[in-house]
C-alpha cells in the first residue's frame, strides 16, 4: 500500500522522529510505514489521518486501484 506521508510530513517540516512521537510509535515504525514496507493497523491509520486532518483514503491508497 502506498501513502503520501513523506509529502505531508515535508509540508509541515516534520522529521520522522516528530511523526513517530506524535503517533507514539518508534521511528523505525514511522519509517517503515512511510516507505510502504509496513501497513499500519486501522486504528493507527485513523490516528495518522487525524494528525494531518485528512481522511485515511487521502493518505493511503492501493497502487493497483489508482
Amino acid at each position, binding site marked *: 500500500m502506498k501513502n503520501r506521508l513523506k509529502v505531508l510530513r515535508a509540508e*509541515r*517540516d*516534520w522529521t520522522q*522522529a*516528530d*511523526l*513517530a*512521537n*506524535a503517533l*507514539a*510509535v*518508534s*521511528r*523505525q*515504525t514511522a*519509517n*517503515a*510505514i512511510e516507505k510502504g*514496507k*509496513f501497513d*499500519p*493497523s486501522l486504528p*493507527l491509520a485513523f490516528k495518522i489521518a487525524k*494528525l494531518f486532518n485528512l481522511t485515511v483514503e487521502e493518505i493511503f491508497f492501493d497502487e493497483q486501484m489508482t
Partner: protein
Amino acid sequence: MSPVKHSDTTCTQHNKSKILHLGLWTLAWLASTALLGFGAQYIWDYQPAYSITALMTHLALGVTMIMVNVKHLANLDELQRKITMDAMGITLGVGLIAGIAYEQLENIKLISFEPEISHLIMLMAFTYIVSILIGNRKYQ
C-alpha cells in the same frame, strides 16, 4: 513546527526501562535455575524442604517472567510486536521440529549420547536472535 506529542526521550526511556525490567526478571529466573540445579548438590545436600522451596521459587519467578514478557509485548508498537511475534513463531517451529528430530537421533542410533535439552535451548535462543535481527533489517 513539530507536532504536539510526548517527547522522544520519554518514549525511548520508557522502552529501555521495560526492557531492563524484563532483563532483570529473566536474570532472576536464570539464577533460580542455577540454584535449583546446583544448590541441592553443593549447598543443602538434597534436603527435600530446601529443594521444594527452591523449586517453588524457580516456578514463581518463571511465571513472573512470563507475565512481564506479556506486558513488554503489549507495550511494543505494532511493528515491533510483529517482528517479535514472527521471531517467536519461527523459534517455536524450529524448537518443535529440531527438538523432535534431535530426540529421534538417539532412537535410530545416529548418535550415541543422550540428547540434552540445553542444546535445544541454545538453538532456540540463536534462532530467536537471528529472527529478530532479520525482522529489524527487513523493516529498516
